[in-house]
């Protein structure tokens, strides 16, 4: 240490008469560029090895507002841990073909983060667990038929997005059974309040016309179409760069933790927030009724393609009043419209080790396994 201190002192004080030569600008620029390039390469490699900056997995979509980035490697640490890739269709699933092979029963799962299951490794998510169980059982019985359970779950999706997703993407896979994993806020997130129009995410919203018909309100997506346009550079950064992921993760963390940052962000983006979006030409909506209509529409879509819909209700272990209301409404609707209805509340509440089924907000490995166990007899 003493040697270093001496060296420092000698360098800090130039000798008398010594002229300090200023580096030419091109050299400073070159050094900066070179050092930055080396640092970026090293950081990207290190982050890739350590699984850092890989929680960025959405890209804009002109139909759905946002969707999973196809083939994106994701390391999820916010709750639980998983480290695997979306398939080339952007599904949290193994690689799948669009065409269904003969003798295969296809089950498509729609839902939000609960179905997506980033909190556990892919092989432990309930769609994969269910597929393995059904195939094992079929094999034991000597049957030739196979089951494929396709996971279309995507964090934050509302019922409106799930209907659009079915119509634009899922139907192409010709599923025989569609499981809609309904979560508490799926209906509420499908409608939009007039006061929120300027700041809400651009995605499909719904309303009921005076005649009670389901209509899509795409005004926000149209007004913010520039944000949904594919941007090749951003798209590449989202897919390939862990550093970009770290920056976005930091901005998200700051917006959760720091009021001053939120204020500053609001100030910087005030122009965007003040953009003119046409007010809704319809009265405030009842989310439960809109949700019911969306399920009806999905049921009509699925049955018209020769499939069968099952609505699986998220376990209401906390006794949320919204979800309780929707449980009653949708079970009646199921009887009337003839789709399957499975409420997970009771089995989860009565489970001996119910605390072990949930990590914080999402299912643990045991929770996913339990879900698959519950769903299997229902599929039969």
């Amino acid at each position, binding site marked *: 240490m003493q040697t270093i201190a001496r060296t420092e002192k000698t360098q800090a004080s130039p000798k008398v008469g010594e002229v300090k030569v200023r580096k030419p600008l091109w050299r400073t620029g070159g050094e900066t560029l070179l050092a930055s390039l080396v640092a970026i390469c090293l950081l990207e490699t290190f982050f890739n090895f350590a699984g*850092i900056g890989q929680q960025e997995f959405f890209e804009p979509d002109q139909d759905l507002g946002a969707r999973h980035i196809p083939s994106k490697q994701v390391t999820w640490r916010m709750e639980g841990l998983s480290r695997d890739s979306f398939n080339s269709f952007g599904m949290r699933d193994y690689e799948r073909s669009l065409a269904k092979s003969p003798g295969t029963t296809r089950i498509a799962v729609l839902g939000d983060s609960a179905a997506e299951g980033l909190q556990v490794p892919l092989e432990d998510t309930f769609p994969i667990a269910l597929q393995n169980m059904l195939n094992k059982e079929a094999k034991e019985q000597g049957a030739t038929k196979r089951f494929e359970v396709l996971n279309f779950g995507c964090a934050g999706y509302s019922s409106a997005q799930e209907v659009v997703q079915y119509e634009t993407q899922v139907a192409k896979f010709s599923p025989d059974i569609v499981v809609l994993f309904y979560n508490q806020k799926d209906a509420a997130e499908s409608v939009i309040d007039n006061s929120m129009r300027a700041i809400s995410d651009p995605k499909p919203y719904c309303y009921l016309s005076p005649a009670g018909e389901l209509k899509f309100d795409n005004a926000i997506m149209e007004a913010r179409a520039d944000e949904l346009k594919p941007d090749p550079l951003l798209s590449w950064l989202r897919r390939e760069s862990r550093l970009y992921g770290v920056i976005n993760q930091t901005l998200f963390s700051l917006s959760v933790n720091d009021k001053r940052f939120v204020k500053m962000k609001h100030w910087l983006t005030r122009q965007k927030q003040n953009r003119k979006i046409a007010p809704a030409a319809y009265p405030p909506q009842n989310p439960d009724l809109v949700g019911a209509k969306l399920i009806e529409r999905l049921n009509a879509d699925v049955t018209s393609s020769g499939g069968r819909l099952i609505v699986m209700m998220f376990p209401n272990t906390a006794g949320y009043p919204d979800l309780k209301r929707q449980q009653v409404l949708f079970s009646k609707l199921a009887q009337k419209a003839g789709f399957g209805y499975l409420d997970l509340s009771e089995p989860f509440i009565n489970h001996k080790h119910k605390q072990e089924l949930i990590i914080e907000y999402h299912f643990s490995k045991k929770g996913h396994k339990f879900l698959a166990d519950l769903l299997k007899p229902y599929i039969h």
Partner: protein
Amino acid sequence: MLFNSFTYMLFLPAVVLIYWAIPGRYRGSRATLLLVASYIFYMNWKPAYGLLIFALTVINYALGLALEKFAARKKQILIAGLIFNLSCLCFFKYANFILGSIFSGVHGLSALFMPDQADNWTSPALKIILPLGISFFTFEFIHYIVDVYRGSAAVRNFRDFALFAAFFPSQIAGPIKRFQDFTHQLVEKPVFSSANFREGMFLILQGLFKKIVLGDNMGYVVNTGFNHISRMGFVDTWIAVAGFTFQIFFDFSGYTDIGRGSALLLGYKVPENFNWPFLAANLTEFWRRWHISLSTWLRDYLFIPLGGSRVSPARARFNTMLTMVLGGLWHGAAWHYVIWGAFHGAGLVLSKEWTDLAARTPFLSRLRPHPVWHWSGVAFTMLFLFMAGILFRANTIPQALTIAHKLIILDSGGDVTTMFLNSTLPVSLTLYLLYLAARSWLDKAARQESLLNCAYSAARNYFEGSLPTQVVVYASVAFIILGFAPLHVSPFIYFQF
């Protein structure tokens, strides 16, 4: 304002820029700027408490001058000053603890004699918010008036004294400064030094890494364990208990590094607070390496005035116990802190007895130079710290006992272990250990004439001469910290003290 907050990341560069933009001949203006910045920093949390620190500063400044002026009555002035400072600390920090303890005692007695009426009693509590850093700046004030009483010259310049008390890099959680060391830096004309700047940046980044990457992530694992004690198995309990000891080190030493680094960017030096504490081979050595500014304060203003160790062995043991119990109480107004202090006190007494015994016994003295002796001491000290950590972290004594029991029962569990393995900690701890190993290796290499030393010196010279490289390296380390940061920001543990 938290050192690990977005606001501080804007505040510090702004202060540093304005500070160095003021021409050197206006030394006073720079100090005034720092004083204003320090009050902004403090009042950002609760503006009213800016008045408290100001009032305490004015009174202690006056006490210092009075101690000098009225030499004949300086003992009375000192006693008045001590009572005043300790009363403030007691009111804000211990009022509810004292009330609660009295209530518990009276309630316990009443329950014996009037069981029906005692059930309806509710514990009294005053609505007091603990001012941030009060334990630290009160100790600085006490040190000041005691030293002036002992003959040091009082600070004449009020602004300098106010800055000593409020200096933002060490205001909230120390290190507890000595006014002689600090005020002489105010007298000297501060000159911008690139070496100081580099050292400051290095300390800030190292501190942020310790706090955010290691301490906060460790905190999640530890909290999961301590919040669900019944679900913890054998391995879980060991991870949670050891994790807490390391969490508090990373958290507090991280804070100190950021504080020292911030001070260096402004051309000031604040004392070191940690010196590889987990390499201590006994508890006495540990307290020379851990929270150095507090342990030296306790030594100089409590232990030595009580008689220190130059008294009868029994009295020396009593002095050690009392110092550590009060040191425990300084940390927090709760009985488990008192017991934690007593536990450390007993540990120090036993450690001293053992060292004396080892020196007296020929067989043991032959073993002492052996590395196994040293490393056994390190392991035993570490184990002691884990046990003491349980008392520090547990909310109640029964909870601490349950955790201690779980350390020896071979229960299955797994939540905490899974959480630890799933977190970024295995990678970040490896990274930190590699960094420590590289630093110590390079320090050794720098003292020898070797090819490695030449290469290291060349790289160092290049780094020091190339600002772009420095900026890129700092930014890269910042990115690593951000990449490993947990979603939620946690305050520093020592802020509550």
